[in-house]
């Protein structure tokens, strides 16, 4: 039953994306950047989804350390993996945009650099997990590292802002820029679809973790017998 709901939700997310991409493609071109501007419909929602994932990963890690319930460890790892994929999508779409507008694939700008450092931090989290065999130790150490990484993110962002001035365009929504209303609507649809897609991926990953734990315990039982 749960699996069927997941599949349905996944299909819904993909359907929204497909319909919305079609609609976005028909929107008029932006005055200065032309069609390239439309990458914002993907670039920003995946970034927000990745940030949400980082916050949930912190929550899962803290809850694991407090309760020692493996449910939260599974949540932390699922959310980190999915968040890492979304952050990678964010970096790649940003890089494509930069190639078109700036003429370079990469600039050592504050936002780009801090996003890259975040990616490396959470990639380290996954590598740490792979290096530890014992489940309790793996979950504890990973949770500790996740807390360290999350605290690091704001310090990284501030320090790199001092180091390099911003080349990355200011966010449209906070800096007085404006979207026409129907653009905002399509943006929000994409936002919802990305978040839903993220949630479905996390849920699928959680199922895998559960199955993995079951296999481990069965294997231990077989050893005892």
């Amino acid at each position, binding site marked *: 039953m749960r699996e069927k709901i997941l599949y349905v939700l996944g299909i819904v997310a993909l359907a929204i994306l497909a319909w919305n991409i079609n609609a976005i493609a028909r929107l008029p071109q932006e005055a200065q950047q032309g069609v390239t501007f439309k990458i914002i419909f993907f670039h920003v929602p995946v970034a927000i989804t990745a940030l949400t994932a980082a916050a949930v990963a912190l929550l899962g890690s803290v809850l694991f350390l407090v309760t020692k319930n493996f449910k939260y460890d599974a949540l932390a790892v699922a959310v980190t993996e999915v968040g890492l994929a979304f952050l990678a999508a964010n970096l790649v779409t940003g890089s494509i945009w930069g190639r078109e507008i700036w003429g370079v694939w990469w600039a050592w700008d504050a936002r780009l650099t801090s996003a890259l*450092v975040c990616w490396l931090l959470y990639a380290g989290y996954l590598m*740490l997990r792979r290096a530890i065999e014992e489940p309790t*130790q793996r979950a*504890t*150490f990973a949770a*500790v*590292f996740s*807390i360290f990484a999350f605290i690091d993110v704001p310090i990284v962002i*501030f320090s790199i802002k001092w180091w390099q001035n911003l080349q990355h365009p200011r966010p449209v929504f906070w800096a007085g820029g404006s979207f026409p209303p129907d653009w905002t609507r399509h943006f929000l649809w994409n936002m919802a679809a990305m978040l839903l897609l993220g949630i479905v991926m996390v849920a699928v990953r959680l199922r895998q973790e559960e199955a993995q734990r079951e296999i481990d315990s069965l294997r231990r039982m077989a050893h005892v017998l």
Partner: protein
Amino acid sequence: MGFFRQVFVIAVKDLRAEIRTKEAINASFAFALVILLLFSFAFDPSAETTREISGGLLWIVFAFAGALVLNRSFARELPNDCLDALIAAPISGAALFLGKALANFLLVSAVELVSLPVFGIFYNVRWTSQFWELMLVLALGTWALTVIGTIFSALTVNIRLREVMLPMLTYPILVPALLGAMQLTTDLVAGRPIGPDTAAWLKMLIGFDVVYTAVSLVLVETVLVG
């Protein structure tokens, strides 16, 4: 035994073990020399530009050489199950961590203080004009390196690929601290004192040290005992 006495005992024990074997500090210093040598191939070592990148160069040497000391910090306790004995000893995890961090701080500082004049000679840089401010930045940056390195040394001591994992985990976390230390060191080596526009880096470095020392002290018990 009071808390600080416990810290002191652990630090002295570690330093004594290191001074008797010299296994980490010799390797670390030799490694620092090798990196300094390799850098001379990467750019013209006598040019004026060396001074402009000196901070980055020095801190890369310190971070890489320091990792060798930090790797040994907890790994040294593995033979004869010394680590289990230390955890079972009637001292808190925080005292054990702080003692080890202090010993590592002194060892890494020693490597740095020997590397600095060697750097000055090899690259023909007069680095002493802002000596005391440079020492302050060195101490703050090294404490950041050792506090993160020591807690992650405890984290990685029992796992596969220990030597690979420690730098993989520490360097990304250390990005803000290394960035600040590099900026300040470049200025100080070039003879520019810390001014109003670089003071923010100093504050950031102090903040980094305070935050991560506190977080490590809170979490070390979890890391050691589980």
